[in-house]
């Protein structure tokens, strides 16, 4: 848990700090920090914004859709019930009529016609009346067709009527090509043990009245189909009567079913099917005008611009803020660095003063000793001249002086060391960069001589406080020597590595002629050169050696004849006492 907290703290610190990590597009530390802040802020505001918008969108849509659905269901239910009512009313009326007269009366065509006319007067839209006996033969008929004596015993509807005691038919094309449907009712006069059927054909037009409400929406289509999908009433968009209405919906037996059919773009069709009881019909409602389909466009247009506007505004403000704040940070960082630099410098100066004073102080005594002893020698010479005793004494005095001289030397040596450290400028140097710069100078030469160059630069090499220019001088010198040893072809490899906690190293290896063992101990001597006369001053390596020493490091060399040479320059990360 603690580990997690630490990691989080570290991550937060790194993200909101002008670090060298998390650099963006190679921009400076502070620019990167500004960008990071703006990005994070924008992200943190956009993400919830989008989540909210998305949720709102779908939520809104669902609510409206649910609402609409309910509305639709209610409307369909309404229409269905109306139609059912109409049908039931007709059935009841027919039943009543049938039970009001005897079979004999109804079988009489003249009588039937009279009854039919009365009925027609009350309930418009009727086409014919027919009475069918229990064997399925039409006994009497009043209407435009010639159906007397027709045998219906084989027909499905006949059997249905017998079972259910009423029957409503599908729509069929009838007289004068006008669509009709038929209702048949069974009458069982009490005591007779037999039955007869009264059948009426009705104009679909009467049905239509109930199907198309006055205030129907223009894009909506309400019509009746049968269980096989054949249109029973004309539809606006889906065909005329007795045409097939195709749908992949399952036509329900009993309930109301709604389904969203398709969505092409803004066009959303909802289809509702409601089984109309006591009939073979299904009420179909195809709705095109769905108000909730407008939502995407609202969201897309108005909301989009508002959102974009706010985001843009947000970005602008965040950028301004980030800019101001980070600039402040940068300024205060710079001021702090400046102050630190000043105090570091001041303390350096103070330590110089102290060192010089200390050395001057220390040198007093040995100097005084030398002085006294020399003075004593003078005194002795002047006073007593040379006697056997004095010789001893003199030699003693002389060795005493020599001792003090050594003391002086040690003291001044410290001063020298100090001065050397001061002559080097100290900066945090990336040795990999320094090496690559030097290689840059020599690239052409290396290519020209067809020498293979191999760089093994350790990643995350710690930076070291040293003088870049002088270090590069050393590398230049060594690599030049390697080039000379190789003439053409061959390879040079440069490797940077961490030697230990306090130092790093750079190894320059070549597979050239190598240095014979006896020469190895002399190569760092000034003016030692194995090159032909006139070529090479022999100063390079000795100067390099001096530079590296001054920087607190060492140069090591390994070589084998005809195998190659490796020079290793090792430098401390920090100079002691600087």
């Amino acid at each position, binding site marked *: 848990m603690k580990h997690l907290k630490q990691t989080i703290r570290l991550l937060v610190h790194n993200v909101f700090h002008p670090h060298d990590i998390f650099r963006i597009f190679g921009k400076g530390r502070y620019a990167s920090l500004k960008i990071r802040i703006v990005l994070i802020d924008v992200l943190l505001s956009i993400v919830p914004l989008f989540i909210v918008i998305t949720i709102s969108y779908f939520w809104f849509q669902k609510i409206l859709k649910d609402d609409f659905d309910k509305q639709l269901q209610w409307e369909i239910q309404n229409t269905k019930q109306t139609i059912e009512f109409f049908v039931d009313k007709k059935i009841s009326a027919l039943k009543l009529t049938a039970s009001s007269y005897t079979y004999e009366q109804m079988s009489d065509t003249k009588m039937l016609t009279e009854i039919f006319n009365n009925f027609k007067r009350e309930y418009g839209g009727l086409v014919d009346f027919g009475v069918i006996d229990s064997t399925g033969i039409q006994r009497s008929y009043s209407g435009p067709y010639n159906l007397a004596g027709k045998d219906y015993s084989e027909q499905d509807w006949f059997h249905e009527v017998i079972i259910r005691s009423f029957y409503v038919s599908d729509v069929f094309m009838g007289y004068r090509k006008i669509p009709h449907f038929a209702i048949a009712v069974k009458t069982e006069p009490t005591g007779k043990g037999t039955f007869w059927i009264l059948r009426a054909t009705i104009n679909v037009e009467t049905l239509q009245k109930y199907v198309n409400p006055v205030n129907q929406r223009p894009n909506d289509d309400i019509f009746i189909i049968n269980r096989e999908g054949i249109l029973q009433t004309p539809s606006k968009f889906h065909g005329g009567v007795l045409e097939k209405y195709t749908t992949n919906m399952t036509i329900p037996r009993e309930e109301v079913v709604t389904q969203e059919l398709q969505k092409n773009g803004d066009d959303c069709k909802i289809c509702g099917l409601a089984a109309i009881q006591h009939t073979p019909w299904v009420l179909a409602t195809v709705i095109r005008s769905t108000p909730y389909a407008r939502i995407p466009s609202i969201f897309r247009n108005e909301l989009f611009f508002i959102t974009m506007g706010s985001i843009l505004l947000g970005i602008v403000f965040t950028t301004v803020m980030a800019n101001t704040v980070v600039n402040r940070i940068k300024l205060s960082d710079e001021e702090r660095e400046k102050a630190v630099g000043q105090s570091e410098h001041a303390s350096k100066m103070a330590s110089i003063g102290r060192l010089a*004073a200390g050395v*001057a*102080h220390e040198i*007093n*005594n040995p*100097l*005084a*000793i*030398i*002085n*006294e*002893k020399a*003075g*004593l020698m003078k*005194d*002795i010479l002047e*006073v007593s001249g040379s006697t056997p005793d004095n010789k001893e004494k003199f030699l003693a*005095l002389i060795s*005493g002086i020599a*001792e*003090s001289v050594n003391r002086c030397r040690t003291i001044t040596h410290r001063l020298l060391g100090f001065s050397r450290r001061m002559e080097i400028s100290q900066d945090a140097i990336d040795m990999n960069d320094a090496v690559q710069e030097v290689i840059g100078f020599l690239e052409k030469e290396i290519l020209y001589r067809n020498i293979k160059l191999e760089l093994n630069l350790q990643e995350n090499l710690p930076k070291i406080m040293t003088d870049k220019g002088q270090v590069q001088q050393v590398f230049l010198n060594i690599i030049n020597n390697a080039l000379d040893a190789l003439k053409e072809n061959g390879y040079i490899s440069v490797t940077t590595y961490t030697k230990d906690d306090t130092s790093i190293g750079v190894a320059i290896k070549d597979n050239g002629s190598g240095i014979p063992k006896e020469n190895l101990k002399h190569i760092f001597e000034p003016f030692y050169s194995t090159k032909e006369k006139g070529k090479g001053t022999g100063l390079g390596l000795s100067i390099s050696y001096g530079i590296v020493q001054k920087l607190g490091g060492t140069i090591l060399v390994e070589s084998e004849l005809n195998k190659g040479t490796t020079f290793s320059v090792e430098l401390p990360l920090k100079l002691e006492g600087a």
Partner: protein
Amino acid sequence: MAHTKVLLVDDEKEFASALAERLQLRNYDVQAAANALEALGIVHSFRPDVVLLDLRIPGMDGIETLKAIKKFDSTIEVIMLTGHGDVQSVENGMKNGAFEYIMKPVDISELTVKINKAWQKKQVSR
């Protein structure tokens, strides 16, 4: 005149012995001490006229030694031996009764002049 008695207080033995010998060649009666304790002891027994005191001796602080000497016998004159950067100690010493100071490395003729002046002062203050 009787030989002027000089006590040389300095912890650098090489320096002290050489200087002592030189002074002796110049007819001074010289004794040497390497630290404050020794010095005070010799002051008691030897009763020097002039004390050459190096301010950086170990043990008691040079100034403290100076004060102790002056307390013991205020007629004893003290000449401070100093090095670079001892300015403050010198000032301090002068405030505490030192007669003079001389810088190391010492110019022997300058030193003898100062010792004689000190001795003369001592005669006067008797």
